[in-house]
């Protein structure tokens, strides 16, 4: 089947699909008239039951925590897949031959190096306050992974003595994933239902409130930061993290 025939067939099929979808969405509720009961039920119930005002965090980590466990595992598997695909290339290349890059300018190194610390603090803030403000484990984790990328762009090499540095990233990611799974099983053990909120709830609005929700946020933040940093490090192939001599 030549390329031209394939494109024409695609256009026809997509036109039919588009027409069907337009007819389908015309029957939805008009934009702005949300009908369903679940949002209203959550708005009424969550502040009393979980002592938190962040409905999205409560939904992600508590009421629909099982979906989040599945998404965590997708993240973990995708990171493992990236490592498996790109690690093979590195072994085939034999000795580590980091590609030569020109040294970044002084301004880039200064600003980049100075910003790594505040970005890590920002990531920790977004993760820990996930049950009070917008944010949470997923957003804060990506910011944390980006801090490592900033260190590379600033030309700093992160060197570790004993532990192989890729190994450190792998264990960070595993700790996060295992932490969330442990939270789920802890709910099973302590309260009879997986992912049940079994830690005492505090008063709403305080940092230590809402039971397992901030703990779940921290576990997810660690795992997402580890996964993003691991994927980026695998793509960069040792230019960032020096193997121990």
């Amino acid at each position: 089947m030549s390329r031209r025939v394939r494109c024409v067939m695609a256009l026809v099929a997509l036109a039919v699909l588009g027409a069907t979808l337009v007819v389908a969405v015309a029957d939805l509720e008009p934009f702005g008239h949300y009908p369903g009961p679940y949002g209203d039920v959550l708005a009424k119930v969550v502040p009393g039951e979980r002592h938190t005002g962040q409905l999205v965090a409560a939904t992600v980590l508590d009421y629909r925590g099982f979906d989040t466990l599945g998404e965590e595992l997708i993240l973990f598997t995708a990171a493992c897949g990236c490592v498996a695909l790109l690690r093979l290339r590195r072994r085939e290349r034999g000795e580590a031959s980091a590609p030569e890059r020109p040294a970044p300018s002084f301004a880039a190194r200064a600003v980049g190096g100075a910003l790594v610390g505040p970005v890590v603090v920002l990531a920790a803030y977004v993760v820990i306050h996930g049950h009070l403000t917008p944010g949470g484990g997923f957003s804060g984790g990506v910011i944390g992974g980006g801090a490592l990328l900033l260190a590379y762009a600033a030309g700093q090499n992160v060197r570790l003595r004993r532990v192989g540095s890729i190994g450190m990233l792998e264990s960070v990611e595993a700790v996060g994933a295992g932490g969330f799974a442990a939270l789920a099983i802890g709910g099973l053990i302590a309260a009879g239902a997986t992912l049940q909120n079994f830690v005492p709830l505090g008063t709403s609005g305080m940092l230590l409130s809402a039971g397992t929700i901030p703990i779940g946020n921290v576990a997810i933040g660690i795992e997402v930061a580890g996964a993003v940093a691991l994927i980026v490090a695998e793509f960069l192939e040792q230019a960032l993290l020096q193997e121990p001599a």
Partner: protein
Amino acid sequence: MSVLAYLVAVWLLIAGIYGVVTSRHLVHLVICLGVAQASTYVLLLAIGYRSGAQAPIFGDIPQSTPVVDPVVQALTLTDVVVSATVSALLLALAVQAHKRFGSVDPDELNALRG
């Protein structure tokens, strides 16, 4: 006018799939897939929107204000981060395909042909 949000979601899906089908470069294909994924985010959030309502976070607003649906936001939030990681996996596959076949053109990856 009130179906504009849904029509934009349908258009993004059609455009993304067309980009995937007619792509000549594996990396271009992965980015077009990302556009198709964005259509689902737009559709979900458009369904959960309530006119005149606030964001579903009772930080400093009284608990009786109407809020938009938090369930669709929870679904979209996890999906955004996870689909970026899956795109990274697809890019790693593209890099390996280039190494194996010497080309990133999907039309030329013909190892399955006899």
